């Protein structure tokens, strides 16, 4: 195959996906009686506003972290549905910890690092329960993490009460807000009332680390190998149990970071009833949409949060907000289907290529050699 064709095949899938999604969405819009042009105008118009672009990027930061947390599990066939509970519990306890009086004495950098570390520790610990149960008792992590999500909710509800780890403020309850120096500054963006979250760099670091670990380290290789063939992995000296535990802990630790941008870069600097929930499940969708690939997930996270941020504008154009979620679901379908179609087309191409070289093959009498070129 020529390089240009390679390139086109590479971009065909995403492009095709967008086209399909566009068509389906348009159909849905028409069916639901809202005017597609207004809708797309609103959609496009939204991103003329710098504020909305910034919000999109900020939300994407959170989503990306959640996606990576999920992807680590997927890479070895572990389905960590528990990212949701892990990040909420982590954010809540880390917030309470960071809001503690003793903190204000410490230097700012240390406070941030301690907070992040606490969050990762909590996330890892909560995921660790599932890991432990799987490694020692063979309990499916799908069940345990579903259960642990609910348990985390109850635990948070119990702890997030005045007299325990929270204070009341009007109709809200929140952990003791983090004081000056305990949270992070943001980056001013000209023309935007919202600022860019500094933890975006952490997310990039996590992404880079994820890619590097998976593709460049023995540990990452072992994870991928276990995911592809557990029996072969065992025969080649990879301890599956250890892999399960470490992958799950890692996933949980990253999950612990999910709430940090909102906590350390957001406005409230506390975990309250208003703290965004359900991002763990969004993370699953985004990881899948980005095919667990470090770069792919960057795009899927951006796409997802762009749709989220445009929700307000779309409602402005009279499009009911549930259409946004429908679009996201359709997008998910469209992308994977487009990829499958391209995959099949590529096979056909390869076979054609072989056929063409057949003549040459006859002369040398070795198709394998020819095909090798």
């Amino acid at each position, binding site marked *: 195959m020529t390089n240009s064709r390679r390139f086109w095949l590479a971009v065909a899938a995403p492009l095709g996906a967008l086209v399909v999604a566009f068509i389906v969405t348009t159909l849905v819009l028409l069916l639901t009686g809202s005017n597609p042009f207004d809708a797309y105008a609103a959609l496009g118009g939204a991103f003329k506003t710098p504020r909305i672009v910034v919000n999109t990027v900020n939300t994407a930061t959170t989503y990306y972290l959640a996606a990576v947390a999920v992807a680590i599990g997927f890479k070895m066939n572990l389905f960590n549905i528990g990212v949701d509970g892990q990040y909420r519990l982590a954010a809540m306890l880390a917030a309470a910890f960071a809001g503690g009086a003793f903190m204000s004495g410490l230097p700012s950098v240390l406070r941030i690092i301690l907070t992040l570390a606490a969050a990762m520790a909590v996330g890892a610990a909560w995921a660790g329960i599932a890991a432990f149960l799987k490694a020692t008792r063979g309990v499916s992590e799908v069940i345990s993490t579903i259960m642990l999500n609910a348990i985390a909710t109850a635990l948070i509800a119990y702890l997030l009460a005045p007299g325990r780890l929270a204070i009341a403020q009007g109709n809200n309850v929140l952990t003791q807000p983090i004081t000056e120096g305990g949270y992070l500054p943001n980056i001013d963006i000209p023309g935007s009332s919202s600022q860019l979250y500094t933890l975006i760099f952490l997310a990039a670091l996590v992404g880079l680390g994820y890619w590097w670990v998976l593709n*460049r*380290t023995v540990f990452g290789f072992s994870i991928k*190998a276990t995911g592809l*063939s557990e029996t072969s992995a065992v025969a080649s000296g990879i301890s599956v149990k250890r892999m399960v535990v470490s992958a799950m802990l890692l996933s949980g630790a990253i999950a612990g970071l999910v709430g940090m941008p909102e906590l350390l870069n957001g406005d409230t600097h506390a975990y309250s009833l208003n703290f965004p929930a359900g991002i763990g499940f969004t993370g699953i969708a985004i990881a899948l949409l980005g095919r667990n690939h470090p770069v792919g997930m960057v795009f899927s996270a951006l796409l997802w949060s762009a749709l989220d941020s445009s929700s307000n504008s779309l409602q402005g154009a009279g499009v009911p907000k549930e259409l946004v979620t429908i679009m996201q679901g359709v997008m998910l379908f469209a992308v994977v289907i487009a990829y499958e179609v391209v995959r099949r087309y590529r096979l056909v191409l390869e076979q054609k290529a072989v*056929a063409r070289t*057949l003549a040459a093959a006859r002369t040398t009498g070795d198709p394998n050699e020819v095909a090798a070129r």
Partner: protein
Amino acid sequence: MAHPADPPPGDPVEPPPVTRGAGAPPAVQLTGITKRFPGVVANSDITFTVARGTVHALVGENGAGKSTLMKTLYGMHRPDEGSIEVDGRPVTFHSPADAIAAGIGMVHQHFMLADNLTVWENIVLGSEPVNGVRLDSRSAIDKIRALGTSYGLTVDPERLVESLGVGERQRVEIIKVLYRGAKILILDEPTAVLVPQEVDELFGNLRELKSEGLTIIFISHKLDEVRAIADEITVIRRGTTVGTADPKAVTNSQLAEMMVGSELPVPELRDSTVTDRVVLDLAGVTVVDGDGRPVLTDITAAIHAGEVLGIAGVEGNGQAELVDAIMGIRPISAGRVELAGVDVTKLSTLRRREAGIGFIPEDRHRQGLILEGTLWENRILGHQTRPPSARGFRLNRSGARKDTQRIVDEYDVRTPGIEVKANSLSGGNQQKLIVGREMSGDPVLLIASHPTRGVDVGAQAAIWEHLRRAREAGLAVLLISADLEELIGMSDTLTVILRGKLAGSYDPAAVTPEQLGIAMTGGDLGQVAS
């Protein structure tokens, strides 16, 4: 060892005269079949004729395209070009269902069984007997038992397939075909996993089937077998037919010539290189299964540097457990494993591999490869912590790629390149890759479990040669094989494993395959014991 020319023992029936051309149309007529896979032309313009009521052997080196051709005949995929005729009628198969309807049955090279279903469920699947809507398990089981007794293919229909040994699975596969009353049988390397007695049984059955007018297409890399059972032989090479041969006239070496253009390899060792340095020392090794029943009892054995210890045994007598115990894949309940004087009983599989154990597993798909991985990723497998695959905790991808290329060249792995996925290689070529991998990083002990199973003569020669060289260089080898000639030829010492115990050792120079076969099945022949 048995001379190639001798007809194998227990062969009273004279094959009936082959009905060629005259009047009766051939049972199978493949014309100009071409089948391409991404990166490979598996069959190009193959023409292949099988007369009714004959056993027709199909031979060729690994990757020659035998399985592909048969899958085409069985309707598992459509040929890109060419036509199929059955009993003179042109047919197009859209699925195996069509082929089955046309009276064709196939036993695949790799088992096609559902582990978690019972034997009878596996057999009746697709043509189940029912009364009303309910499965009629009774009649199914009875029919299977009947088939079993009439063809000597005994296996308990009510057991779960996952609890069967390879030999039994093979039988289930054959019963599957017979159950459907196929008139044309395709057997893709059915004997690769059988011991001589089982092979003789099988051949007995085949002759019986033939005498009932069935047509059999038989694929094997064991040329003696081929010449013993076949009425006609077709040789294919690199996807095309190079000619047919008369088994009466042709010799093994001539066949080999046609297949690979090289001499027929003979498994034999040169003068002994056995030293007195013990490399592997097993003392009272005992392994129990999930229910606490012993599957390996008090195994005591030693392998010296430069020595090949051959273990003969009927499938499922503890070979797998022994290997697992040495590799540290499953815990041992008693005993000690020492490698080069170091007690490794407590060490993990990884540590043992690092200490110099190479491992050629019996089931390459299950334990040897990541089928979804590229060749170079498969090269790393088992060596992930060692150069050239790793630098400390980091992978050395370029190093791995380079070394993979070396293996592909040295071991003549037929592949479009090292970036292709392992599952697009033919069985034999996958095996060569594994052997190459396990030989690299100079191990002190090699556990070779059926190293040449399903491997063509050319590759066999290569693999044996590599074993010899390594042995001369002081490698200790534990050789487990169902191919008794290989076992006898390649071992310095021979022991038989029976029901999890080592049942006496034999002198490879003196023992014959038949005697060994008897010993393996529990018969007593103390006289040849050394």
